[in-house]
């Protein structure tokens, strides 16, 4: 029997691990799949090549899969997300200069995002009073959790991310340079870029993404809906291989092996120690400091984290509406949910235990109304109220 050939696109990030391990450890081959992994340089490329069929499947920003399905911001192409490649993994990093300003603007502990967000509001107001240029922050893509997390944090302190600061898209490889050259004062990006800024002494990690939103659906395996229908059997085998890869990654005995594999130049291409520290959630937040440890810093297929829940999709859509990227409609809520396919996941991957310590509403934002996917409109209305009235 000859193997089914698949082309799968990915961006060199730690949360592509399940995909890379599935291929490089032979789990895909075991399912009779000959997967060619194609490393890409931009999310726009990944989306376009998936859309026009150059890729059979891709590692994609979870909100971008939904935006594509809704036809928001680009050509409409119904995509399905039957596997969550990762939860969390981002961090907000600021320049040492901005960090000092924030520290001077509060008596509280900056590790608390409520405190840091209010401090940011004071710094922003002070700059405006002095007639200085607004602060500039980088994030990776309009339809990304990076964008939604940094906006969520700013808004909680009363800062309007569209009016009070400049929020710009920066490709991750340019983030650190831009912070060093003071083109930006801070950014929200995934691993390893926050750590690189810290080790160069040009940035301080202010918050892990999980401090803002405890459980943010980050990347998915995306396929075209039509492709999934035509090649249901191939998809099921690919999902099975990903499920096995996720189990492999989460066995601590394999961590060195996984880090070495991801470190290869044609894969993620950064030092294995950095990859290992990322998966373990062990990151230095300031140069010379002791690492902060958060086991949920990034979650790759752990404890059922790979199962895409309809609520995750609805929450991401609600963020799009909140920031004016998409109009609100009940049809769109349904269309966003239809993009996430736990049923396809269940048909291929054995269910593991549910996530321990799950936030009550599954999302776990640090402040603001709890999220209910059966009342997205009510959630959005509650977000509009001033912080004191929630």
């Amino acid at each position, binding site marked *: 029997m000859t193997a089914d050939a698949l082309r799968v696109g990915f961006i060199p990030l730690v949360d592509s691990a399940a995909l890379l391990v599935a291929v490089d450890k032979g789990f895909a081959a075991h399912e009779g799949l000959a997967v060619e992994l194609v490393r890409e340089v*931009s*999310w726009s490329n990944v989306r376009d090549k998936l859309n*026009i069929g150059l890729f059979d499947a891709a590692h994609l920003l979870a909100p971008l899969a939904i935006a594509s399905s809704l036809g928001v*911001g680009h050509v409409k192409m119904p995509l399905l997300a039957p596997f969550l490649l990762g939860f969390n993994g981002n961090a907000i990093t600021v320049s040492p200069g901005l960090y000092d300003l924030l520290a001077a603007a509060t008596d509280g502990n900056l590790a608390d995002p409520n405190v840091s967000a209010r401090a940011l509001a004071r710094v922003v107001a002070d700059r405006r009073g002095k007639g200085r240029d607004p602060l500039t922050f980088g994030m990776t893509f309009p339809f990304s959790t990076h964008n939604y997390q940094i906006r969520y944090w700013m808004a909680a302190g009363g800062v309007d991310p*569209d009016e009070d600061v400049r929020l710009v*898209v920066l*490709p991750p490889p*340019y983030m650190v340079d831009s912070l060093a050259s003071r*083109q930006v004062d801070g950014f929200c990006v995934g691993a390893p870029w926050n750590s690189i800024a810290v080790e160069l002494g040009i940035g301080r990690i202010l918050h892990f993404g999980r401090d803002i939103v405890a459980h943010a659906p980050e990347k998915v395996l995306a396929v075209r809906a039509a492709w999934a229908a035509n090649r249901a059997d191939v998809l099921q085998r690919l999902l099975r291989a990903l499920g096995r890869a996720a189990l492999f990654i989460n066995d601590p005995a394999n961590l060195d092996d996984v880090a070495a594999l991801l470190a290869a130049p044609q894969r993620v291409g950064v030092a294995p120690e950095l990859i290992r520290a990322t998966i373990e959630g062990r990151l230095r937040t300031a140069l010379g400091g002791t690492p902060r440890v958060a086991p949920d810093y990034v979650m790759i297929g752990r404890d059922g984290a790979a199962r895409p829940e309809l609520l995750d999709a609805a929450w991401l859509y609600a963020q799009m509406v909140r920031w004016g990227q998409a109009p609100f409609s009940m049809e769109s809520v349904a269309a966003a949910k239809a993009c996430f396919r736990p049923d396809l996941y269940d048909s291929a991957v054995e269910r593991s235990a549910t996530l321990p310590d799950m936030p009550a509403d599954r999302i776990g934002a640090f402040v603001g109304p709890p999220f209910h996917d059966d009342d997205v409109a009510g959630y959005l209305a509650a977000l509009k109220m001033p912080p004191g009235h929630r």
Partner: protein
Amino acid sequence: MDPALKIVIVDENPVRAAILADGLREAGYTHVTRIEEMTSLLARIYELDPDVILIDLENPSRDVLAQMFQVSRAVKRPVAMFVDQSDSAAIEAAVDAGVSAYIVDGLKKERIKNILDLCISRFHAFARLKDELERAQTALSERKVIDRAKGILMKIRKISEADAYALLRRTAMNENKKIADLAQSVVTAAELLK
């Protein structure tokens, strides 16, 4: 053809950008500007205020352009992608050639059809050129290493140049290797034994 259209080329490869810019100027487009500095890309684009933006797909800054689709106060002129659902052949041809095009909202697609066609053919031409150059370079470096291996064999075995080449060729055939690869092994071995 519409010579008044302002065209911006975003490409870090100077040769490819020049090939494309020349083609556009030959076709009569006079307002062609190349941006090579990526750190302030969006600011430069707003300053130039182009009607058409052409960007290569090897460029991570493509995602920066995604911001221009957003309806936000930071964005002055909304931008659309040249291709939509009805143009799947056009988008495929462009992606295949390694280029993507963006136009300002409201600009009729027919007006830039020939710009995109030209762009695609120039990108293909560049890829062919690069291919030929790489092949020529490989051939040249292979010839150099074969010459060195011949010289080593002539000296050590005290044989003629023709015999040295025949020996390399015979051994390569027997070992099912390329002559250049075998020659490289000879050179490496000779260096180790120095």
